[in-house]
């Protein structure tokens, strides 16, 4: 089982599946803009997070099942699975006081 996944991981390195919908998310002064992201329900999407701060931030969401570190002054792609309609909060884990946002699937 594990080996199977490991092998499939190796095989698929060159061909990640592209998501349908792309949304840009900017982090500046440890705040997300837009703080509310709207995506279509039941369809995968991709958030491109642009970190304009000098320090790294971790896009963290238990609801979205995502943990991704985006280094300072760089970009990161965050894949969002097909979501049932609803609100899915996320945060920047290193500045949870200010870096808060929510993905709304509708």
């Amino acid at each position, binding site marked *: *089982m*594990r080996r199977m*996944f*490991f092998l*499939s*991981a190796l095989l*698929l*390195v060159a061909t*990640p*599946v*592209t*998501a349908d919908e792309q949304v840009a998310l900017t982090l500046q002064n440890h705040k997300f803009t837009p703080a509310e992201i709207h995506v279509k329900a039941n369809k995968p999407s991709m958030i491109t997070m642009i970190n304009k701060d*000098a*320090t*790294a*931030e*971790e896009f963290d969401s*238990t*609801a979205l*099942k*995502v943990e*991704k*570190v*985006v*280094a*300072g002054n*760089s970009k*990161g*792609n*965050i*894949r969002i*699975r*097909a979501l*049932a309609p609803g609100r899915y909060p996320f945060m920047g*884990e*290193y*500045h*949870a*006081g200010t870096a808060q946002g929510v993905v709304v699937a509708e």
Partner: protein
Amino acid sequence: MLSALLIVFREVIEAGLIVGIVLAATQGVPRRGMAVSGGVGAGVLGACLVAAFAGELAALFQGNGQELFNASILLLAVMMLTWHNVWMASHGREMARELKAAGHEVVTGKRTLAALGVVVGVAVLREGSEVVLFLYGIAAQGGTSNAALLAGGALGLGAGAVVSALMYFGLLTIPAGRLFQVTSGLITLLAAGMAAQAVLFLQNGGYIEAMTGTVWDTSWLLREDSIPGRLLHTLVGYVEAPNGAQILTYLGTIVVILVLMRLVGKPSLRPRPQPAE
């Protein structure tokens, strides 16, 4: 300060619980201190490297480097834990008897020490790189709150170490004969949880597209980002809303480890150990 305390505490218990289980599992094995502290040292060093090159790492493989890296080191840990359990299944009984007999020096467990050192290293590497990035962020920010935040971090480190130590000493109160059963059970669940986590990283990287739908949701009962939720996540792989692939991997890993332990541990397949003198 409270946020620094919490974030460091969370990461430290996640790595610390694993170190505690490894220490309990290697009870009585000579030179285990070296393997474990070597693992911690290598993990801390690796964490600094991962943090320093976080941007470069993320950019690899069309932006999926981080997901692949996380999945690979988790799967490496799963393999090491499996090997340890399978090895112990064939030698655990001798070890337990010798421990009970008269504190004989036990040497059998030595073989998997290096593997468990790797597991410790991987755990510290994963959780440590987050702490490094977080603390670096604080240091780079400047301002008057630095001292308070660093004090919070230090308190979090201390509290995390205390919880991990409690876990370790709690395990030690189990009689030696049963300790191996308990630790091999814990290690099986630990490995299953790690394998499921690895699958999640592969899904987030877009490498596994099947069975991504949530199967059940127990967030009303226990939130995964609460402290008890985090503890259970590390120990037994608790996930509040697992998807199909995670559940299958979790169960599959348990089955594979149990079957391997059965096969290797069968008394008929190996010469009967001579009783210790």
